[in-house]
């Protein structure tokens, strides 16, 4: 699979995640979301940016609990819960948000 962005062809794996994480740009995030009929808003970007920061430091996506806690701290307690995250990423913040943020898919019993 591949994604066409700005005249370039970006390789994706079978599940639509970036083959090469270093390919990621904000435009690619938009394109990945558009392909699934999601329009990225500022609220989405707050989450995606946090995911990328966390990944940079720890080489893995944050646990759901770590994510909700961080979101709660940064954006207010009313947003620090999985319900809010699912409202933005209905297919699951772990997997769907990771895809747009250019992180590898969390694997295992999750």
């Amino acid at each position, binding site marked *: 699979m591949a994604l066409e962005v700005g005249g370039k062809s970006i390789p994706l794996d*079978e599940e639509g995640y970036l083959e090469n994480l270093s390919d990621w740009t904000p435009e690619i995030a938009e394109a990945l979301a558009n392909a699934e009929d999601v329009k990225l808003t500022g609220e989405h970007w707050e989450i995606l940016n946090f995911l990328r920061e966390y990944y940079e430091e720890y080489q893995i996506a944050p646990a759901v609990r*770590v994510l909700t806690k961080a979101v709660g701290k940064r954006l207010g307690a009313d947003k620090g819960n999985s319900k809010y995250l699912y409202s933005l990423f209905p297919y699951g913040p772990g997997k769907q948000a990771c895809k747009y943020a250019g992180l590898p898919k969390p*694997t295992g*019993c999750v």
Partner: protein
Amino acid sequence: MADYEIPKLTGEGYTEVPAVKEDTMKGSGPFIAKADFQKAMGFPTDFDAVGDLVPNWKERALEKMADLKSRYRSLQVYLDICVKCGACTDKCHYFIGTSDAKNMPVARQDLLRKVYRRYFTFAGKYFPKLVGATDLTEEVIKDWYNYYHQCSQCRRCSVFCPYGIDTAEISMAAREILDHIGYGSKYNNEIIGKVFKIGNNLGLPGMALADTLEGLEEDVEMDTGIKVRYPLDEEGSEILLVTPSADFFAEPHIDGLIGYGKVFHETGVTWTFSSHASEAANFGMFIGSYENMRRVSMRIREAAIKLKVKRIVFGECGHAWRVAYSFLNTLAGPFDFLDQRYPIPQHILEYTVGELEKGSLTIDKSENDDKVLTFHDSCNVARGSRMGNYPGGQFEIPRKVIKAVCNHFVDMPADTIHDATFCCGGGGGLLTDDLMELRVKGIQPRAEALKHVTTHYGVTHMAAICAICKSQFTKVLPYYGFTMDQIVSVHQLVSNAIILQRQVSVQARPDEDEDDDD
């Protein structure tokens, strides 16, 4: 939500056996593993591209079959003794949910059996048509790959087979053959590779693990006012806790993990996780690979020796407990360096029930009064292992613990629990998004049983003791109108009800020790 029909629930507690249909689930199976993933596990990589077979695949497949039937006498017996009585036909959740003829356990076995007969039995070699023997063709291989990844190896059919034929073992053997001819499953093999490289299924590096655990300590302190420890790599601890990495990551798994820590805290025992063995799961079993299953198991032995622990305890993980209870000693033993007065290994529920019986935990059951619970027996615990020192302990102990911490408990119908339990629909290495239709349809019998007790007995929550079950339920039960927060970990219930009495942990933070010395 889906481009296939989601079965309707009646709430009557049982599912009608569907009329058999052909090929409703015919397909190409889950994503195939690329050469990198196969290489990490010692499987052949001489196929050109993903989806291609290796050169001489037919000979190599038959060679592997001969090897497996000579290694596992049980496999040959299972392939020889089926009398086609039909007792298994309606026992598989995937058959009930999909009505595909090849999802009847006997038909699933026959996919391998017909080839075995053709090449390894007298009648099959000379009169193949008379005995249902067929040549090994590329089409047969594709059927194997597709339908042996529609078996969660839950072994419910084997309970009803008068000969005790274990379809799981046949499906494991088939996957092992497929892995040797270029048809490995991406989901399983990528994950096993991560265990070897990073230490767990998730690919959670030690630093992230440490950060997650530190965060949990803060959360629990904020919640209870007490510094409960969640230690990592602390040498000389009494207990090594080995738990699925989903417990560090997903919900409601992590709420169960919080519960393990509270129980250990309260009973005054020192314990630790290991970053080297930060995974209980052993997907080597799902793919029938003895070599990989052993390699995954050895990490636990290595961690126990390095951390100088006296006991090994397993967290809530279904198939890990089967491997641990039934195979660990032969895979990675002898464990003569552990304290022989305790079960080797021990299940966290055995530990907790013992402490509850001793009265060393202060419990306020009313903390769970907002819930009416039921319990899902995980297949690998129910049919592949035991707990406690008496038959049926694996059914009784989890219920004992739940009833000790909750006032309201109702079991699901008798033919859907204990050793007749239905799989969650995502076990055996099938918990992957590319098998979502199968997972949605396979959960039907369990969803039906759950619907029955929610409708008639006011059940609000279902507790589980397996990371796969918890993930499958939270993801797939919403297709049937349930919500994801209706699924809970058993130790989450313990965690809710436990009133911590011990103000200071017996295990100081390593950095606090240093502070004291300064």
